[in-house]
């Protein structure tokens, strides 16, 4: 969590993009251009996409998870810009992804265990590639990021429900396992969630920010009980309240439309989160699962930049190249600290390893801090 709001003054209004209706991942106006959905067979080690050369237009993937881990499926444009994704595909389940794909080269990815770069494959979309006008590129950024937020909030809700259920069942091991997973979806969209200042401290407030007369609630309260006393038998009401608050924030976040400038500042804010709260181990001081948050912040920042990418490529290709390079560096450095499908504990990292992470975040955050001015010009 952070103590200051994501503030984007006056200029945001001037940039607000008009005429965005109907750009989201609408389920209701599917045109049946393809012959039924493209089947994707996902296991813990494979990701077979039925067809890898398709026509431009509306495409539907039906992703079946035959593995033992929860899976995700993504379609990426250059720079890992998410064109569409479906999260939280439980073992045995099939879920559909509908996505509008203009002509171009893409990548598909399954992410068994919901982590890492995933199992990648090429996807070629033929047809006429429409050149995107500058303003259109920005308006698409808003729509693209809104799709991302909606996918994350859906998973946040599901995972919070599971976490709350485990807490109420007094299943401490399960609650501990679910805690960093649920928080991943929160951390990816933290700047959006934090724009609702009344709910953020209730959901994500750390003990020291609680003011007099306010109860210490939310994720971190339950974290403290899980990891210090191991007793959550009295946390039922707190868990219920967490779910209520998460539901409220999900509804509000889904309705929120961030301007391109807000996206740019959000991408930076996420890295500031990493630099100030995760590197230091302040955020997850009881569970020490800070690296989960680190990774989620990084992914969220990358998603915001990816949404802006077409506009940035038109306006500042050098900056895009710099961002690509530095994102890759951070991912590489962070990747050394994977543990299974998750991450090492903050307390398992040496000071030198933390400094290396800090250096890589600083190296990325400097060019990211220049994105807003490029978007605004």
């Amino acid at each position, binding site marked *: 969590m952070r103590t200051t709001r994501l503030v984007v003054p006056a*200029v945001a209004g001037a940039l607000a993009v008009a005429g965005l209706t109907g750009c989201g991942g609408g389920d209701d106006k599917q045109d049946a251009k393809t012959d039924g959905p493209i089947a994707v067979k996902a296991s813990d080690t494979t990701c077979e996409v039925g067809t890898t050369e398709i026509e431009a237009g509306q495409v539907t993937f039906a992703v079946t998870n035959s593995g033992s881990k929860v899976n995700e499926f993504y379609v990426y444009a250059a720079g890992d810009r998410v064109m569409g994704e479906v999260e939280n595909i439980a073992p045995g389940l099939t879920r559909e992804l509908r996505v509008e794909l203009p002509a171009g080269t893409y990548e598909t990815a399954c992410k068994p265990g919901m982590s890492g770069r995933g199992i990648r494959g090429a996807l070629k979309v033929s047809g006429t590639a429409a050149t995107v006008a500058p303003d259109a590129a920005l308006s698409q950024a808003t729509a693209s990021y809104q799709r991302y937020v909606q996918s994350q909030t859906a998973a946040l809700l599901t995972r919070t429900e599971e976490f709350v259920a485990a807490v109420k069942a007094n299943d401490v091991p399960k609650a501990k396992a679910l805690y960093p997973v649920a928080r991943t979806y929160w951390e990816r969209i933290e700047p959006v969630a934090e724009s609702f200042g009344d709910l953020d401290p209730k959901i994500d407030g750390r003990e020291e920010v609680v003011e007099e007369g306010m109860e210490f609630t939310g994720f971190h309260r339950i974290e403290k009980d899980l990891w210090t006393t191991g007793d959550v038998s009295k946390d039922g009401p707190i868990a219920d309240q967490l779910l209520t608050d998460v539901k409220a924030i999900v509804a509000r976040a889904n309705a929120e439309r961030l301007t391109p*400038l807000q996206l*740019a500042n959000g991408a930076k804010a996420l890295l500031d989160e990493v630099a100030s709260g995760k590197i230091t181990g302040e955020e997850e001081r009881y569970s020490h699962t800070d690296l989960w948050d680190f990774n989620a912040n990084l992914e969220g920042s990358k998603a915001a930049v990816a949404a802006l990418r077409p506009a940035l490529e038109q306006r500042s290709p050098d900056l895009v190249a710099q961002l690509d390079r*530095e994102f890759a*560096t951070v991912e590489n450095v962070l990747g050394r600290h994977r543990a299974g499908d998750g991450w090492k504990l903050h307390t398992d990292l040496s*000071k030198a390893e933390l*400094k290396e992470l800090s*250096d890589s975040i*600083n*190296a*990325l*955050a*400097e060019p990211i*801090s*220049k994105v*807003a*001015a490029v*978007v*605004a*010009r």
Partner: protein
Amino acid sequence: MSGPGTDGAPRGSRLSRRRAITMAGIGVAGVAGVAAGAGVLTGGGDHAVATDRAAGAVPFLGEHQAGITTPAQDRLHFVAFDVITKDRARLVALLQEWTAAAARMTAGRDAGLIGAVDGVPEAPPDDTGEALGLPPSQLTLTIGFGPTLFRDAEGRDRFGIADRRPAALADLPHFAGDALRPELSGGDICVQACANDPQVAVHAIRNLARIGMGVVSVRWSQLGFGRTSSTSRDQATPRNLFGFKDGTANLKAEDADLLREQLWAQPGDGPDWMTGGSYLVTRKIRMLIETWDRSPLAEQEQIVGRTKGRGAPLGGTGEFDQPDFAARGDDGQPVIAETAHVRLAHPGQNGGAHLLRRGYNFVDGSDGLGRLDAGLFFIAYQRDPRRQFVPIQTRLARHDAMNEYLRHVSSALFACPPGVRDPADWWGRALFS
């Protein structure tokens, strides 16, 4: 990138915001050390001149780097960087960008071309702003290259310059009693910022570190608040935290022959890129203040070999009297003890080896046991550490009575190239060309 020339030289047409604010603040005195007339208006002739000079700018371009024989300023911010890129081109680009920023900041201007407050509202300013309204304050920025820039710990030639490492840049040996902390020692590149205003020195290092993100990472840094040496005969000898005058026998800017012989690398000494440069040794020396303060005056003076008041060598009367190391007292003992600091460190006792010292006192707060975390950040420039610092420190480490009150916790060695000659030149050009 064309080097600092295009943007580093002062421009007549466009004043930076910092310069404009500064000039308004100082009024007619100006910022470039223009003393004429200022005395009349401020009513305090000499004082006004001195103030002006302290506020003015030290030229950035020159045969040698500024910040070595420049009269020692009052404040220090010293930083050592690790280079974290493997890409030589990025390192070179940074050195060029740094040179341009250093040229601007030493002239009292903002670090970036746009400045702290003149950019678009959506962009972070390219200067951090805390020096707005402050004069140049004789800021000097001096760069040096450490042994690890040439080869890493595994012996790899990191940037294709291993064959250009000067023999004089040999790793320092372990000295008796060294309690060095690796994380506070060494470094691939250093920058010494000295200024008469601490905010100006900190501003310079902060902005250079920011420009360097992704290419370099700050390894350690040190603030110093009071100079402990004079590098010019115009300056009075200051005191260190033991309360003694320090640096009486220092090399001084006026000693032209000695500087050639003892300070500047000469043609044929080593690789050409260092000719006109100098080798820098830094040592962070923690002083055990509380136990020192409890020791009797006579013992303190015996340990130093000088009087505490005037700084005269024992047996002499004036600060600049030559110490008489042969003199013996009524008891038959040497007047200046065999283990006295001044005897062991004096050029006359070290085959004529001099150092140009420009160290600073430091206090890093307290140490958790209620003791002052304080001491001397020793800085010494020389032509060849193998003939100067190393033999002197070897003797001191073995015999100096003062060691009881000292802990050397940090050590570093750097090759400081000659000055940036002209607007097209940049820090390290000869090394990387």
